[in-house]
């Protein structure tokens, strides 16, 4: 199908974009890469009155490291993240995750800001933001607002952004040197929507987790930073400990049913990912043999 008619404005500055968003509110939609918005418009799931195209706001594009903070502009494309030396050095989890986002032609247009503002519960970057403890920076009529990732995602396609605000950047703490990560998702075909995925970051000391952050996606109406990870920190991991953590994880999940999988299948796969992640990060093949029941 084709999108229904709309008016189009090419924003000339962030201030200009904000003026239009203030006037139009929910009747406007921000267009960056368009890889989620345009399919939704072509399918007539959304029909904005005005499209505010921020594609030429080059000040919103790029990756920079300052001290212990990695800042990524909202218009940075997935393809840019994949090639960025700063991302590879300071947020390697993100690089692994981006390789799973859709296909090359989509990654050449899709942006990090667009993906986060769209907040699809099956997408990779929102979960990575939780795992990495990101801060999302939005600008609105009242100035700049800094929103912690764990307060940003509030439901399916729903975020803490108001219709008058523009997501301009994200800040990530630089990953510590001794830190390690795991990323995997189950999908029927490379690049398809994940059935279940896990983005994890960990510090390991003497064969134990000193810190473990588990960001699951496609396990509910928003990404989940699993509290059950705490059951695996500062303890010797045995199969029994892992089973207990998997059972606690099960209580935290609220998976949706769709044409790809039942909630029961998603619960099972989340536990498979947990076991694989722990086994791989600790280099303990004995723990990853199968999914804890």
């Amino acid at each position, binding site marked *: 199908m*084709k*999108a229904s008619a709309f008016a189009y404005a090419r924003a000339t500055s962030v201030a200009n974009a904000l003026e239009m968003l203030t006037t139009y509110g929910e009747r406007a939609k921000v267009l960056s890469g368009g890889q989620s918005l*345009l399919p939704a418009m072509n399918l007539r799931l959304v029909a904005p009155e*005005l499209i505010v195209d921020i594609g030429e706001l080059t000040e919103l594009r790029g990756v920079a490291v300052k001290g212990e903070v990695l800042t990524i502009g909202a218009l940075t494309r997935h393809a840019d993240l994949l090639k960025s030396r700063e991302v590879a050095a300071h947020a390697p989890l993100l690089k692994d995750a981006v390789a799973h986002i859709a*296909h*090359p*032609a*989509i990654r*050449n247009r899709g942006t990090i800001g667009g993906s986060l503002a769209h907040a699809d519960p099956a997408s990779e970057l929102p979960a990575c933001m939780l795992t990495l403890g990101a801060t999302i920076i939005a600008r609105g009529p009242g100035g700049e607002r800094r929103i912690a990732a764990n307060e940003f995602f509030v439901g399916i396609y729903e975020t803490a952004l108001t219709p008058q605000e523009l997501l301009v950047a994200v800040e990530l703490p630089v990953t510590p040197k001794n830190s390690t990560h795991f990323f995997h998702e189950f999908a029927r075909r*490379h690049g398809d929507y994940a059935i279940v995925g896990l983005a994890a970051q960990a510090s390991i000391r003497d064969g134990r987790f000193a810190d473990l952050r588990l960001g699951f996606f496609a396990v509910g109406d928003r990404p989940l930073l699993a509290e059950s990870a705490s059951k695996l920190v500062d303890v010797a991991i045995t199969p029994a400990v892992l089973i207990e953590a998997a059972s606690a994880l099960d209580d935290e999940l609220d998976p949706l049913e769709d044409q790809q999988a039942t909630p029961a299948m998603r619960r099972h796969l989340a536990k498979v990912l947990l076991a694989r992640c722990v086994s791989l990060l600790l280099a303990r093949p004995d723990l990853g043999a199968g999914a804890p029941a």
Partner: protein
Amino acid sequence: MTATVAIALSVNGELVEANVLPRLNLADFLREHLKLTGTHVGCEHGVCGACTVRVNGDIVRSCLMLAVQTQNAAIETIEGLSDSGEIADLQSAFRERNALQCGFCTPGMLMAAQDLLKQSPCPDRERIREHLSGNYCRCTGYQAIVDAIESTAWARRGRRP
């Protein structure tokens, strides 16, 4: 409120100026306005890959880009790549290997394949499949397409050791 917008862009090296409605996507602009019908329109939501074109050197889905977003951009379509001879070897490999049947997906396949071969001169079969993962073929299956791309990669490597 939905007035036309003036755009100026380059298509296969030629300057094009037009007035377009905002809702017009790039695929329809190429096909309906410029009569460049080699770019095919399949799913219209970014899944099938038949509409793949190059914008400023990068492959993109032309159904997921508005014509108004191409202001000042350089677009290359399958007609451009074909006429310049850039993919002549890839096209003949597709013919020799029977890598097409109805041909609907072929322009998108060729765009994606050439993109891969430019980035990675000797991809293995798994890498080829991964790069084509966003392009659907509904007749021949993918084996012959992967064969054609692999043999083109070998031949190009032979020519440029």
